[in-house]
């Protein structure tokens, strides 16, 4: 019996060891980043990871002397609008593919699926010409309009809508609900979790856009954070490490907070929607 206990203890110890090693691998970049954001750049440049002067000075510098807050604000606007638009348009498209009967429905669905195979990165040249012609360059709209809908989001919500029991539609029909009513009274609340998942997904992908805003925005008034950081790196002397790390921290904190609160929905939603 004690033999058995001893073995279990060793196993448990090994397990914690594994967990801690993995944690270190994941966390070191974070810790190092946050830590150095508190150190004076002069000390960091000497290769020191300790300083007698630990302060939030870098944050003050970043906020007062760079447009980092403006970048954050821009990204927030762009990401929120994109997210809302995708929730609406993806859910309406998914609704059509699940609950409407019309000629060519399956063909259209394959067309949607096919767009998932076409990388946006391979289409930037004509898209650039298009937004230039539409006069959208260097404006919020240029980062929102092309992403108002998403084939992936439609696909994910379709999978989720397919799980709604057909009887609910029949119950709605008996009461004479129109498609529009069934959509917002039943389908949307029923698929709440998938909707949250899509919300988180579309918010994050918009937030993480890099190439497209880099090509289409030229002023700090509209530039989102990702490209803002790039701008800071090229403008400031690349070696102002403390300030750069502080900017990175400012940017990452909102997403980390959002992530930890949304984690539960993300987990269940992704597994339900995407894989089945």
């Amino acid at each position: 019996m004690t033999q058995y206990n001893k073995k279990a203890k060793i196993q448990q110890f090994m397990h914690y060891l594994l967990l801690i090693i993995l944690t270190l691998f994941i966390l070191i970049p974070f810790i190092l980043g946050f830590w150095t954001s508190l150190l004076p750049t002069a000390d960091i440049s000497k290769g020191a990871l300790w300083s007698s002067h630990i302060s939030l000075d870098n944050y003050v510098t970043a906020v007062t002397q760079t447009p980092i807050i403006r970048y954050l604000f821009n990204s927030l606007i762009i990401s929120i609008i994109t997210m809302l638009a995708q929730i609406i348009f993806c859910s309406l498209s998914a609704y059509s593919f699940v609950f409407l009967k019309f000629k060519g429905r399956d063909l259209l669905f394959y067309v949607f699926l096919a767009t998932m195979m076409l990388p946006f990165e391979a289409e930037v040249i004509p898209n650039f010409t298009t937004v230039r012609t539409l006069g959208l360059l260097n404006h919020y709209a240029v980062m929102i309009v092309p992403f108002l809908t998403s084939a992936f989001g439609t696909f994910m919500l379709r999978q989720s809508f397919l799980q709604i029991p057909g009887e609910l539609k029949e119950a709605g029909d008996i009461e004479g609900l129109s498609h529009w009513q069934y959509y917002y009274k039943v389908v949307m609340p029923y698929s709440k979790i998938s909707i949250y998942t899509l919300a988180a997904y579309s918010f994050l992908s918009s937030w993480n856009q890099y190439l497209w805003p880099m090509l289409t925005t030229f002023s700090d008034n509209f530039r989102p954070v990702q490209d803002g950081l790039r701008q800071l790196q090229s403008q400031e002397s690349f070696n102002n490490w403390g300030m750069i790390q502080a900017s990175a921290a400012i940017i990452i904190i909102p997403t980390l907070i959002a992530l930890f609160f949304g984690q539960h929905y993300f987990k269940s939603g992704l597994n339900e929607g995407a894989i089945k």
Partner: protein
Amino acid sequence: MSIELSNISKTYNGSDFVLSDISVKIETGEFFAIVGPSGCGKSTLLRMIAGLIPITSGELKINDKDVTNLPPQERSLTMVFQNYALFPFLSVKDNVAFGLKARKMEKSEIDSRVINALELVNLSEYKERKPGELSGGQRQRVALARAIASDAKICLMDEPLSNLDAQLRNKMRSEIRELQQKLGLTLIYVTHDQVEAMTMADRIMVLNEAKTQQIDSASDIYDTPSNTFVAGFFGTPQMNLIPVTLHANSQSLNNESGLNFPNNHQLSKGKYLVGVRPNALSIDDSATVNNGLITTIEYLGTHSIVHVILDNSLEVLVETKSAEHLTTNQQITVNVTGKYYIFSEDGQSLLLTNGGYINDGKSSKEPKLQALF
């Protein structure tokens, strides 16, 4: 409210009929069951009555008004579904109120109807709960309450009890029946369970392979099944069906079937199917001439089911009050002591029944259906 179906058919491709030529008039306040095996079209028929699926041809009248082309909400009916169709994100109360709100009814009216309906199904104290927090039986009651609250006088039910365990099912059966009578509902009840249909319904429509097989009361269906399908579908265990070939007119059934029949019919020569329910057979273990061998005995408490292989190697089931004196591998004699049925060779029509138990040589009941001759 009465419901009249005239020559209703359904096909999706124009040639294969899911339902073919269904006609029946269901009276106001009638409990009408539609029963049949899975895939017989019973759910489709119910959905056509509801207006969820378009009718290919034929006419549907509710209270003598043609509703064939009306959408569901204009047919003044309500429906209870197999999986209850409750909205998981709404409370019990809001589920019951769902249809009323959709119809833009006044709030005070909605409230009073919801309270009343929940009281009728004994769920008043659960009204704030979500369906996920209820047991299967309680969810079923919420679905019933929703139907009650709608105040429609026609209620369609699609296998509403099939997801409940046996005990609860028995309880709900009588509850539904009581509610139906209390509220004077015209109720169409779809089920694959013959017991449910027989115990609840005033009349039963038996559907198989897209066609009506028989429409009758439970006792008439049991006593006078119009074909072998109906005969086999009702009654547990199933009716024994024995193929016989008579080589001459008025030949005895005994030799051909391997059973002992009490009397002879004037059957013309040809092929027939003879149906005998297990409870219309009896076992004699003291006869000198035996006609079968016991293979299995199922003890069921009040009675036993004995599996017998007849000398002509057909298996028949016999229901007997006591099987204490019987053992497997015992040679015995099986006698026909109750009602039996003579069907045409293809099983499609009932030609003759002998009526009840015949000892004195005279038939107790005239066959309902016309015999061939």
